[in-house]
C-alpha cells in the first residue's frame, strides 16, 4: 500500500527509511500530532491510531503514525478531509493536552527505551499495512 510513516523517532527512521516512505519530524510528540492534523486537514488518511501505546502522551517523547494520501476529487480539487481521521487526531490532541506537563526526558538510556517501545508498536502497524 502506498503509505508513509510520520515519526520523530530516529530509530524508526533508521529502520524503515530504506524500505518505506518516512517523513521525519524534527520535534516533539505534539509536533508529530500537529503535523498529522495538518496533513489530515489536507486530505491525508490515518492508517494507525495516533494514541497507540499505554505510554501516555507527555511521558514518551516519541510518536510514529501511518498515513496515506487522500484521493484527489474528480474535478481536480484536493482530497476532502477524511472525517474519521479528523475525529481521531482531534481526540488524540485533546488527550495529549489533558496530561500534566513533565520535564523533558534527557536520560539517554530512557530515551532509548522509549524509542524501542515506539518502534515496536510501529512495527506491529507496518506488519499489518504491508500484508
Amino acid at each position, binding site marked *: 500500500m502506498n503509505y508513509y510513516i510520520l515519526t520523530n523517532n530516529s530509530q524508526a527512521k533508521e529502520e524503515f527509511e530504506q524500505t518505506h516512505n518516512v517523513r521525519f519530524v524534527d520535534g516533539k510528540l505534539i509536533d508529530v500530532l500537529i503535523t498529522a492534523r495538518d496533513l489530515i486537514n489536507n486530505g491525508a488518511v490515518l*492508517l494507525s491510531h495516533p494514541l497507540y501505546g*499505554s505510554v501516555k502522551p507527555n511521558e514518551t517523547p516519541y510518536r510514529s503514525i501511518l498515513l496515506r494520501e487522500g484521493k484527489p476529487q474528480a474535478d481536480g480539487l484536493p482530497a476532502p478531509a477524511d472525517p474519521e481521521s479528523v475525529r481521531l487526531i482531534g481526540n488524540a490532541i485533546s488527550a495529549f493536552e489533558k496530561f500534566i506537563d513533565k520535564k523533558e526526558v534527557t536520560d539517554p538510556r530512557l530515551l532509548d*527505551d522509549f524509542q*524501542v*517501545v515506539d518502534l515496536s508498536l510501529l512495527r506491529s502497524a507496518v506488519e499489518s499495512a504491508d500484508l
Partner: protein
Amino acid sequence: MRLELGKINITDIQFAKESKIDKGVLYINPDDLKPVVLEDEKIKDVVFDIAKPGESVRITPVKDVIEPRVKVEGKGGVFPGWTSKVDTVGSGKTMALKGMAIVTAGKIVGFQEGIIDMCGVGAQYTPFSKTLNLCMVCEPVEGLKQHDYEAAVRKAGFRVAAKVGELAKGLEADETCVYETQGIKEGIEKYPDLPRVGYVSMLQTQGLLHDTYVYGVDAKKIIPTIMSPTEAMDGAIVSGNCVSACDKNPTYIHQNNPVIEDLFAQHGKTLNFVCQIITNENVYLADKERSSNMTAKLCRMLDLDGVIVTQEGFGNPDTDLIMNCKKIEAEGVKTVIVTDEYAGRDGKSQSLADADAAADAVVTGGNANEVVVLPKLDKVIGTLDYVNKIAGASEDTLRPDGTLEVELQVITGATNEMGFGVLSAR
C-alpha cells in the same frame, strides 16, 4: 465444557529445605525453583523473596502476577503453549493455590511501572496486597535486548507458577467449585426462557510490553474467536503487558476473571452464559475495523441477547471499545461496557478518548489520574531507581521524606477494567 476447580487455601509462605504444602503453608526451597528460571540462558540470575499482607514492603516494577495451578484430570496442562502442549484446556479438574501469587518484578525498560504496596494507602488500591506473594527478580545476561528480556521473564514466570502449582498434586482441596457451560443447542433447550449472554473480552495487543497471548499465539494475529469461559481458568490467556499498570490484566486476573465468575454465578438462574469471545486491540485501524466487525458478527450468529464488553488499557483501545459497542448494538444485541477513566487529576476532563450514544450502559473501574501519596516503606523488592520515570509519576514523585506522590496509574490493578479492583462509581 465442565471444569472442577479445587482450591487449596495458602495461609503462609516460608523458605525451607523441602518444597511442599503442609496444612496450608507453602514451603519453598528457592534452589528447587532457580534451575526452572535459569533453564533460559538469557537469564543470568534470579532472586526470590516473599512479601506478605501488612508488611512494610513495596514490590516494583511489577511485570506479571500469576496464580500457581496444576491440571490433575482432563486434557492438557496449565499455560498451554508455554509450559504445556496446546491441547484445548478448560475441562476436567484443576487445582489452584488460593491466597497467593507469583510476582515477576524488575526493570525491563526504564519507564516501566507497576507498584504493589503490601501496607498503607497503596495497599488499599491493589488487589495483590491481599495475596502472599512469592516474588522473583530476574537479572538478564549482559547486553540482552528489551524484547528478549521481556519474553524471558514472562515465560520464566509461567514455568515457576506451574512448578509451584505441581505441589498441589495429590492434595485434598479445601473447596471445590464447578463451572459448566452447555453447547449452543443444549443451552437453548435447557434454559429456553433465559437471556443468552456472552462476554466479549478485549485483549491488549500492540507491541513490546503491550501484548497478550492465547494458547501461545500473539493475540495481535488472531481474528476474534469463541472460547469456553473455563479455558482462561487453565491459563489459556496470559499477559505480556504491564504499562500502565492500573488497567492491564496480569495473568492472575485472566485466571480469576471476575466477569466470568459473576456470569457463572448467574448461569441457569437469571441468564444463560453462552461463551467468552476474545478480540484484540491492534494499532492498525483496519485491524480494529476487522476485529470489531467479526466480534459483532459472532454475537449475532450466536443469537446473543446481551454481552458484557471489557476493555484493556486506555486511549487507543477506547476506539476498539466504542467500535465493538456500536457494531454489537447495531446487530440488536445489548451491551454493557466496562472501562476505567483518565479524567484528569481533578476528574473533570473527558473520561474516554472516544464515545458514542450506543454506549449507554457503562461500568467504570475508577479514575486512573487520581493522585495518592504512598508512604515510605521499609523494604523494596525490585528497584525504586526509575520511579520518577513511570506513567503517572512526575519529577516530584519521590519526595525528600521518601513518600511517593503518584497517580493511580502506577498501582498494579488499581482501576482494572474487568472489575477486579475496588474502585467504581454510581
